[in-house]
């Protein structure tokens, strides 16, 4: 097992090195960093001097090491568009995105798992079929269309919920949260549903499929023969084994949630990392783009790593299979 985890850690480190290289190439070779920093009136000498000062004439490996060193200290340079340090911008925007992702993940789990169990246990009930059909439509609805529909119904027509922003936020040290005020909760409802809907349908279908699979196994039949109550069988025995793949998928989809928060944040003008990134892409703001790339990849890689390790820890079969294959 130690070997497996070591292998995963090695792979994660490899991904981060590749991502860092991409970010480095992006910041140093795409476009001319100098012309993005100086004004029109700068002379050629000024430019050369700046180039020398910034170390852009050094060999590429030296620059790469310096880039990594700066990145580790959270220094990604200064945004071309906003003329502020990228690290400050990210620190301001990160809480908004993490809160949105967290609330929508919880929403997807809390609604998706019970619905999945329900549709598996009452397979022939018309309500289950309806839920499944609707969930198929949910997979095909692009995120931004869901957002627009919600805004049209609940903001424009009914005027129940705000259509943009985070509402009232409270500062807790360096972290601003919208989850302590009623206003903040009203603002997060629609973005969280928009972002979580796809994950919800995914979880629903997965829980249903796994549950149906588990209910067919011998140990469930045996439990039934022992005369256990339905409740004990369904929730004590079956649900436990259903949860293993669900944990994996949920963990792996944190990455998807972060990526699609870009779309949700644009629809609802949510002041998070995603909105920052989209604006950076529109205005070719390279430092912000490369910082987002590194940060988002770091989150994906870490969640993947944790999920991989958890999976091995939770499921003993994986450990033995590896051992048999290795001939130990």
């Amino acid at each position: 097992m130690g070997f497996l985890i070591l292998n995963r850690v090695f792979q994660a480190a490899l991904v981060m090195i590749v991502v860092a290289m991409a970010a480095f190439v992006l910041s140093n070779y795409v476009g001319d960093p100098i012309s993005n920093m100086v004004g029109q009136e700068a002379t050629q000498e000024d430019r050369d001097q700046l180039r020398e000062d910034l170390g852009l004439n050094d060999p590429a490996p030296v620059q790469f090491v310096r880039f990594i060193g700066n990145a580790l200290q959270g220094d990604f340079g200064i945004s071309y568009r906003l003329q502020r340090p990228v690290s400050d911008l990210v620190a301001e925007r990160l809480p908004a995105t993490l809160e949105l992702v967290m609330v929508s993940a919880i929403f997807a789990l809390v609604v998706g798992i019970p619905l999945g169990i329900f549709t598996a246990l009452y397979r022939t009930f018309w309500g289950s079929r309806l839920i499944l059909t609707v969930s198929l439509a949910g997979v095909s609805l692009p995120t931004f269309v869901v957002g627009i529909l919600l805004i049209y119904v609940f903001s424009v027509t009914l005027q129940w919920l705000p259509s943009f922003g985070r509402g009232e936020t409270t500062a807790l040290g360096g972290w601003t949260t919208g989850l302590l005020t009623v206003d903040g909760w009203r603002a997060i409802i629609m973005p969280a549903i928009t972002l979580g809907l796809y994950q919800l349908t995914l979880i629903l279908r997965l829980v249903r499929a796994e549950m149906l699979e588990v209910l067919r196994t011998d140990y469930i039949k045996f439990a039934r023969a022992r005369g256990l109550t339905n409740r004990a069988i369904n929730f004590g025995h079956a649900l436990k084994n259903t949860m293993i793949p669900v944990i994996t998928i949920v963990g792996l989809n944190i990455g998807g949630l972060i990526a699609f928060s870009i779309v949700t944040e644009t629809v609802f003008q949510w002041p998070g990392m995603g909105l920052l990134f989209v604006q950076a892409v529109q205005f070719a703001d390279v430092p912000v783009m490369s910082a987002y790339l590194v940060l988002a990849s770091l989150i994906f890689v870490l969640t993947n790593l944790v999920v991989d390790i958890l999976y091995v820890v939770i499921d003993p079969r994986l450990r033995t299979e590896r051992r048999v294959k290795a001939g130990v």
Partner: protein
Amino acid sequence: MTDQQAHIPHQSLGSRMVDGIRRFAGSDLLYSFVRQPVVVVAFLITVIFILAAIFAPLVAPHDPFNPASLSLMDSFFPPSWVEGGDARFLLGTDNQGRDIFSTIIYGARISLMVGFAAVVFSIALGVLVGLISGFVGGWFDALLMRFADIQLTIPGLLIALLVDGIARTALPSDMREEIAIYVVIFAIGISNWPQYARVARSGAMSEKVKDYVASARIIGTPSWVILLRHVLPNILGPVLVLGTIGLALAITSEATLSFLGVGVPPTTPSLGTLIRIGNDFLFSGEWWITLFPSGALVVLVLAVNLLGDWLRDALNPKLR
């Protein structure tokens, strides 16, 4: 299949086609198609969209991109059945007086074109990498597949956005509008190739140990001929099924990029661009400008998805 045809070279093309149609009429595939009305409807919707896209200038009642035929007097008409609507404009008009129904048809044309091109690009790249990787094996295979793994760690949308952003930075600004469509195709295509590479690779690995490959090698056929003429046709089935589902994904990705304002430019709007433009008028009550293109997009994506799902299940012998 190509091998079988090679044995009967004297049959005429016509009789071969009749033969093929007869075989198709008796196939499981057609049977399972006719048995499921939802799939038939999805197929019809997809065909209608494709035909409307191809013959857009003939089908659309107005030419929304000809400035001469536009009049600002016609702007913001609601759909024809709503009070204040105009019979000339079935689904209403937008802020520039363009007929929504016509812009949807032209928009679907761009959406489908970009979607198809992106999928073809992904398949070409993925299959090429997968075939070589699976056939050659060794460190070459390990390297390429590790690279695919790394890319699969990062969601496709993010990769497409990044590629798009890099292209915007690297290209001179006066060229951006013109080649924006190609940039979008490239960005979506490059973000999806690993799936096809994996399928092609596992196919190539199971095919390369078969006797026909060994026979071809014995008679001195060069490796690339074996790969392209003998192995490729045998692994193409699953790749094309994946491609159908991939088309729905590519159309959604294009719409998403365009909605974010980094996709297809407003001069040749796709469905996503139309939704983006219309979104600005949602709050002032002109809901039709954004909701009709949204509806068209959802129906198109849902139909292609249903078709892909059905094709996957129908061709999967385990589910029969």
